[in-house]
């Protein structure tokens, strides 16, 4: 346990000998060219560099006991590291005990050459282990790779249906997910837990704890189990601090495993399945609720001010949207003449609350230009059955509140509602159970609260 922990400091400590040795080497060169004497400093630099080289090589060895690295790269790195330590020690011995020797200069120069070459090799191997062998090579195929990555649930749901069907499920959806969130640590060079997720064969081969997935059985699949663990759990994947899979991504991988983890299946087949269809469609890429009305310009602020002077509260229903919500909450004395002013909002008015005002049937008649009213509340006004014909002109209605009015069964029978209509509130009116039953026969899907 503690040895592994110490090993984890290897990537940190390893930079000390590199820096110190290179700096000492630079001093050697300056001394050679300019005849300035740095002997003392060079000796100290060599000794400290050597000590840190040994310390970090030891830590590296402890870290390698963790396992999960590409063996060939690891061996190269390790051998080069020990060789470096050996030559460093040799250099220290030469500098301390043989500085008066006639061969000292030649020995010194050749040892330094070996050390610098080996140092670069060690560094390169080490870098390849942590960053991948192709980290420093210019990737000319980067363009292609981007296309592969650009496919995601969001981008696929944006595609037209016939194009969606052409997408290969594994290549288009699953692999890019694994590539983004898993393969960083489970690849041919850095196989944590001895697991590689780069191809289906390697996934099935699995790692230390066995196969990563069992086709057709997501619950028994190790990789799914690990993804579903509580994020605080040590065994949860991806580990704490790494980019996590979100719910819809996990659901997608879950579905893929549950349906056989096929690699040649086209999304066309998958789309026949409701789970994936929902995933691709709206439910999983939650759209914000919107009005099913076209874009419109913002309401002129002069119009809003005119209405505010009547005590009416007028607000856009959301930021940057031209449709407004009007409430007469603070204008209990609003009469038909004043209410006529509301019609200046014409098609911009979608929510209208005239409850508890002095408005009558005539006032409603004046609002015929407000065609887009979706929610209308005329509770506790003096509206009666004659108003129903006027209410019918609001063809976009989905909510109507006539609570506390004197509307009767006759009025209810005359009410014509569109397919978009959802809920009608007619409690505390003269409407009877019989009238409601009649209404339910006409509109079985509308929620009526009586």
């Amino acid at each position, binding site marked *: 346990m503690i040895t592994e922990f110490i090993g984890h400091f290897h990537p940190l400590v390893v930079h000390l000998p590199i820096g110190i040795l290179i700096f000492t080497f630079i001093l050697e060169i300056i001394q050679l060219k300019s005849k300035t004497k740095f002997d003392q400093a060079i000796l100290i630099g060599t000794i400290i560099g050597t000590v840190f080289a040994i310390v970090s090589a030891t830590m590296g060895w402890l870290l390698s006991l963790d396992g999960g690295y590409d063996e060939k790269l690891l061996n190269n790195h390790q051998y080069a590291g020990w060789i470096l330590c050996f030559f460093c020690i040799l250099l220290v011995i030469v500098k301390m005990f043989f500085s008066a020797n006639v061969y000292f200069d030649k020995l010194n120069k050749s040892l330094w050459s070996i050390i610098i070459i080996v140092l670069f090799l060690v560094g390169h191997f080490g870098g390849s282990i942590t960053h991948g062998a192709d980290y420093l090579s210019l990737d000319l195929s980067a363009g292609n790779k981007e296309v592969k990555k650009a496919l995601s649930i969001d981008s696929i749901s944006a595609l037209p249906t016939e194009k969606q069907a052409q997408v290969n499920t594994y290549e288009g959806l699953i692999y890019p997910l694994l590539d983004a969130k898993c393969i960083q640590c489970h690849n041919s060079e850095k196989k944590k837990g001895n697991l590689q997720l780069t191809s289906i064969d390697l996934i099935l081969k699995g790692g230390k704890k066995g196969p990563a997935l069992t086709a057709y059985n997501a619950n028994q699949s190790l990789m799914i189990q690990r993804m579903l663990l509580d994020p605080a759990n040590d065994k949860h994947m991806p580990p704490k601090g790494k980019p996590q899979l979100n719910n819809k991504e996990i659901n997608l991988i879950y579905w893929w495993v549950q349906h056989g983890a096929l690699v040649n299946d086209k999304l066309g087949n998958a789309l026949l399945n409701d789970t994936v269809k929902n995933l691709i469609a709206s439910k999983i890429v939650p759209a914000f609720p*919107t009005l099913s009305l076209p874009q419109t310009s913002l309401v002129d602020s002069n119009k809003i001010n005119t209405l505010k002077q009547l005590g009416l509260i007028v*607000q856009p*229903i959301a930021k940057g949207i031209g449709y407004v919500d009007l409430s007469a909450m603070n204008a209990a004395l609003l009469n038909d003449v004043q209410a006529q002013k509301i019609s200046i909002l014409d098609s911009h008015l979608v929510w209208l609350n005239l409850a508890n005002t002095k408005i009558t049937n005539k006032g409603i008649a004046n609002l015929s230009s407000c065609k887009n009213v979706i929610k209308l509340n005329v509770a506790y006004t003096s509206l009666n059955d004659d108003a129903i014909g006027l209410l019918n002109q609001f063809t976009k209605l989905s909510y109507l509140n006539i609570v506390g009015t004197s509307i009767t069964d006759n009025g209810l029978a005359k009410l014509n509602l569109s397919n978009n209509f959802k809920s009608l509130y007619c409690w505390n009116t003269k409407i009877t159970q019989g009238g409601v039953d009649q209404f339910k026969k006409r509109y079985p899907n509308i929620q009526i609260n009586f």
Partner: protein
Amino acid sequence: MHEYLKLKYQQNRRDFLRGSALGLGGIALGSLLGCNSKPSQKIISQILEEQNVPLGSPHFLPKAKRVIYLFQSGGPSQMELFDYKPKLYEMHGQEIPASVMGKNRISGMVNNQYAFPLAKPATNFSQFGTNGTYVSDLIPHTASIIDDLCVVRSMVTDQINHEPAVIFTQTGNQLSGRPCMGSWLSYGLGSMNENLPSFIVMLSKGGGDQPISSAAWSSGFLPSHHQGVQFMTGKDPILYLNTPDGIDRMDRRRALDFIKNFNQLQNENLHDPEIESQINQAEMAYRMQLAIPDIADLSNEPQHILDMYGEDVLVPGSFAHNCIMARRLAEKDVRFIQLYHLGWDHHGALASGIKRATKQTDQASAALVKDLKQRGLLDDTLVIWGGEFGRTSFSQGKLTPEGFGRDHHPGAYSIWMAGGGVQPGLVYGETDDFAHNVVNDKVHVHDFQATLMHLLGIDHEKFIFKTQGRRYRLTDVSGNVIHNLIA
């Protein structure tokens, strides 16, 4: 003097430094490139303008316009109310399995207990509604409206003691000092009725021992007129609101205008937001003088409505009375109505304690939902019923039929919501066989807060207030909207 200058220029130190760094840098760059430094000045003013502007309108189309939060302070037991676990009856008296107990935090009150015997619920359950949802026999009225409710059985919080847990639920942080939900919404969305405060708090009497602190309805660093206005439990809901005998209302108006002039004069010099709050509050009080007596007068409520809420409805300060008041305030478009009922902290004698608490709250909670529904208000009013945490499935202290109790448990608890765009009839989330750990669809307090904001049309990640050099949100750096709860 420094403070004065700072306020005068409405600029805090950090922005000044940043502004001057940009400014000087811009000047240096400008002289290098041979052009003037105007563009960088524009950047400075933008930085200042972007700060702390209330939303005004929601980010997107809201499903709810108002919230009524029936807070059940003390921690109602999920095992006795909404989370039916037959296993607890079977394993009554046995030690809770170690795998279930896990490494969960337990409070200091049971830390020294040598045994943790499971306790069977002090009630029975029956199925209700079209989905056959199991609901406790203690809450028949709530059970009768189960098809209108969205029950969340998988709530999780971070806190194990009352005060921090209440503050955490209300403000998103365990320490007091941040604004609560009601204040955020009052500040962000503003008022829908200029004669009433947009955030009103009512506490019910007769509940129990655990007190609740007013920090739970504090506006924190937001302007102080957004704090919750607490209605008193006596005859006058708001103290000292009435004009004294012999004083004419017009005299009051003149006096207010005179004081307001002084305040405005001072504000021109100091730009202190608290002066603006003071002006706002005085004006609000004046308008409330007419609105409040009307709200508080229940004499025009028909008898059958009063009967719905239960026999206590006419007792000021009872939960039932506060519920009918909440409906009346919702009718008047008050944005956030916060009720607190105390008395759910059943460490001992749970069986009798929970019987009392449910009797005080069940009928009125259900009546409120029904009453809002018949008036057409439930569509855009979100009603929430829930406490600050749950309770343990094992007994606190000795397991006796009458005496046993349950300790605080943050790892799983149940709440319900209704109206305001949540999915009616839904039961969301799942706990293990002991109602001890959440096994499916966890809803953290921050997720709940994010979802609440979403229902009101607010993107919780974009609703930000900057103070003391740092940006704050209700959900701070956490929270995911639970879209599956939304209809």
